[in-house]
């Protein structure tokens, strides 16, 4: 009987650990971190061949107020990028949440990316950049309401 009770208790312990509310939150947090990384990569990646698609990807990563701001400058941005044949490719270097409210669906993250930039008259250069991102959960997933680069290392 004791062994049986112990087995049940251990099972419950395991079940709570892997399926309980904390586990759900942990899962949501991981989703948020991944989203933050993806968002920052999206808004920092433009290839000459796929400018419009890349800008569209960036736009879908945003929500207001940043979304409206972005839409205002998008066309101009696209034109100058095409003209300069600019290529900016970001890869994630690290991310961590600095704030997270699962219930309200808000989160802030610190995201580091490695950016390789080049253009028609510029040799490829690599640098690390850091973004602070404020996110909101939308029906389509996490989106950035604000994303600002902070001083990073080069």
């Amino acid at each position, binding site marked *: 009987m004791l*062994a*049986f009770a*112990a*087995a*049940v*208790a*251990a*099972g419950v*312990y*395991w079940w709570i*650990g*892997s399926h*309980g509310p*904390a*586990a759900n*939150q*942990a*899962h949501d*947090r*991981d989703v948020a*971190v991944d989203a933050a990384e993806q968002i920052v990569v999206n808004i920092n990646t433009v290839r000459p061949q796929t400018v419009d698609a890349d800008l569209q990807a960036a736009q879908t990563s945003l929500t207001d107020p940043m979304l409206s701001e972005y839409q205002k400058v998008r066309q101009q941005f696209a034109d100058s990028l095409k003209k300069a044949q600019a290529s900016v490719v970001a890869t994630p*270097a*690290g*991310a*961590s*949440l*600095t*704030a*997270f409210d*699962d219930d309200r669906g808000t989160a802030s*993250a*610190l995201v*580091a990316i490695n950016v390789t930039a080049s253009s028609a008259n510029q040799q490829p250069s690599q640098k*690390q950049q*850091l973004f*602070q991102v404020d996110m909101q959960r939308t029906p389509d997933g996490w989106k950035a309401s604000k994303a600002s680069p*902070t*001083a*990073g*290392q080069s």
Partner: protein
Amino acid sequence: MPPRTRSTTTTAPAGRRPKVAGLRAPGRRGVTGGSPTPADAEVREDQDTADAPEVTEAPAAPAAAAPEASRTSDAPTGAAEDDGAATDSPEPPDSADGDAPVEGPAGTADATEAPAARPTPKARRTGRTMTPSAPAPEPVTRRGGTALLERPAPARATRDRSEPARESRVARIAAAVTRPVAKLGANPRRLITVLVVVLVLSLGLGTWAFLAARSDRADGTSYGNEAVVNVGGTAEVVGQTRQAMEQILSYDFTKLDDSVNAAKSQATGSFASEYLSVFEQTIRQPATDQKLRQTATVLNIGVQQLSSDHATLMALVQFTAERTTNGQTTNAPGLLTVQVVKEDGRWKISELKPV
């Protein structure tokens, strides 16, 4: 009532007979009155299996036969009239009318002789009026008599047959549940085997679940990571790491030992010793000579991974170096990945490197 249940199993074949007899009961009732012998014989056969000795007693036979006959015919009769006959307690009137009186006289008849065979039906009839007092003596007499064995058998048979209602269903379910257990109980060796298997399974599964939960919590899977989810733990690790970084990475030429002490108390392992040696070799002298002051400020910090005794953080640190001789300052941000471990109740830096 263990004897009874046991008796049922033993009389199982016998039980079948009375069932048939029960069907014949109405006819037999008349027969019983006239000539108890045939009924007797039948019953006897059944009993034979159970109680051989009594049957062999030639003179006792008719005497015993009389009450028995009455009883056996009784049970089915009772059944025929009302299946309650067998159930005894729940339905006293029936069982009472059937048995109690019979037994009373039967007991005496037993002692007396064959004539008892005839009185029996009468007794039965009278018994009906005696209803209330009946149930009590019943079991006693029954237990004493041979009837004990055959009794339950017909009783069950009739019950099963005529009561398709709840009771039989309940009984069937109960039997289905209890039968395996009872079987096990009857076979101690098998019972022990089953118990041992259950024990081993419980211990095995329990251990597995516990270890799985432990390792899951320790690290690896997302739910093993308490970062941000554990609000209090996150705040603690963030606060202590921030403080450790600012105190260790800042220095003032007037109190360089503060930084050394901070490193000693808030850093650990190889990072602590390396940092201290670097500090002594490359910072202490220039800092003193040039009257340097460096302030490290953690601008932003986030927890990537957190378990009970280990955490990984990412910190954006602003380094401001000031040459106090000429007031010249330089700023340099740094994004660092910090590993901290909990030692002596405090989070200590065990590794610091650029992202």
